[in-house]
């Protein structure tokens, strides 16, 4: 395998074509596969999970003309096979050590907190209520409070979990953008 191989635009286009004939859908699938590979490598204790996910995608892309001829089925299964192979290689090498948790800078925390306040203010009234009610509960009342909230919303408890998570995820992305702008 050529370790110095780089993903060219042409090779990348071929990969997207293989993932889906619709270019937009292919782009979404590519991002999803990459994010999931990162989760898998992280789950195996790989500190540099993102690099390994990219390495997996590069290997698949590099062999794409052969794969197209020989492999039929869901492309994600092929990625999974290559990821396992890369994982074995990784384990044979001396893995890098996790980076230490960066120290907390109180000024930075205040900037982040103000960003969070702004992002929460920008939520709709309903979503802000859901966020505060769902995540605000602690201790023994948490289960009851979430059950009550699910009833208020007329949705199942698990649907509430997912919905709360999606609001939280959007909020985190909003805060990250805000912090970036504040640093500029």
């Amino acid at each position: 395998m050529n370790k110095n191989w780089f993903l060219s635009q042409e090779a990348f286009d071929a990969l997207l074509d293989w993932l889906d004939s619709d270019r937009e859908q292919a782009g979404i699938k590519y991002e999803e596969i990459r994010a999931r590979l990162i989760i898998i490598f992280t789950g195996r204790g790989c500190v540099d999970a993102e690099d390994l996910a990219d390495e997996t995608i590069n290997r698949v892309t590099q062999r794409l003309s052969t794969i197209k001829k020989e492999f039929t089925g869901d492309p994600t299964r092929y990625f999974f096979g290559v990821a396992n192979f890369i994982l074995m290689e990784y384990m044979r090498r001396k893995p890098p050590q996790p980076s230490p948790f960066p120290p907390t800078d109180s000024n930075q925390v205040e900037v982040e907190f103000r960003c969070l306040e702004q992002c929460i203010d920008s939520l709709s009234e309903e979503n802000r209520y859901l966020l505060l009610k769902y995540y605000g509960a602690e201790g023994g009342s948490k289960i009851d409070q979430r059950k009550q909230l699910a009833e208020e919303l007329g949705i199942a408890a698990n649907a509430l979990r997912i919905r709360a998570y999606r609001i939280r995820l959007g909020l985190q992305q909003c805060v990250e953008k805000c912090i970036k702008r504040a640093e500029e």
Partner: protein
Amino acid sequence: MNPNFDKQEMRSYLLGNLEADRRAALEESILSDPGVYEELLVVEGELIDQYVVNNLSPSERQQFETNFLITAERQKNLRFGRLLRRYLDSQPVPVPPEKIPVAVRQIETPAPAKKFLPFFSAGPFGRSASIAVSAAVVASVAIIVFICWVSTRKPVQHTVREDSSHLMKVPLTPGSQRSEGGSTPRVQIPPKGFDVRLELQVTNTSFRNYKSELLRENNSLKTADELKAEPSGEQHVVPWTITGDVLSPGDYKVRLSGVVDSGQDEFIDNYSFRVVK
């Protein structure tokens, strides 16, 4: 291969202790099943929240720090979890909006937050006259409401009683009850030489004794065991006296556990408070 994974297996996976065959099956599902992938992310968020409020068992906590927090991305997620918890602890009980639609609506992405300065963005003026009139009406109502609120508002309650023996008494209600009844209690920074008696309200007095841990930003500052519950008016509290110099402005949490007759610890609740100048 069983494609069904429960929440506990996902937790084990994230903490790095799921059996190899189940791990491989789960990994394959992560790639092929969008539902499994999203559920794993939800469980990850829940794990972070439990770490932040110190609700993981000691072994889970160690696995979290050793096996979970290995990438910058996860460290970033933990940082956000702490930030969110700090915000939530500073908020009063949310009031339901007038109308909550029954159907699950599409989840919005928050609008990008504005830069800190200038504080005011361009207002609605300059658009249509009707918008300007509406804005003026809304502003007038807001001013009236604000004036009423200021005139009726009580000063910030510092939940502290001082006595003549250089002891500040701080009654604290459990987080599970506080979140239904008010915001995080505020405590003025103790004068030099003062001790602080934290009075942790409890309902279950059947434990042999109690253990407590004082935390700031998830760092343990002090622990105590062999604490006993005692009556306080119509309630019971577990008193814990600490030296005042431990406290500086910031958010604190006391984690209280009860020790049962077999010697096992049983988590009771968290007690949050904020020290202010």
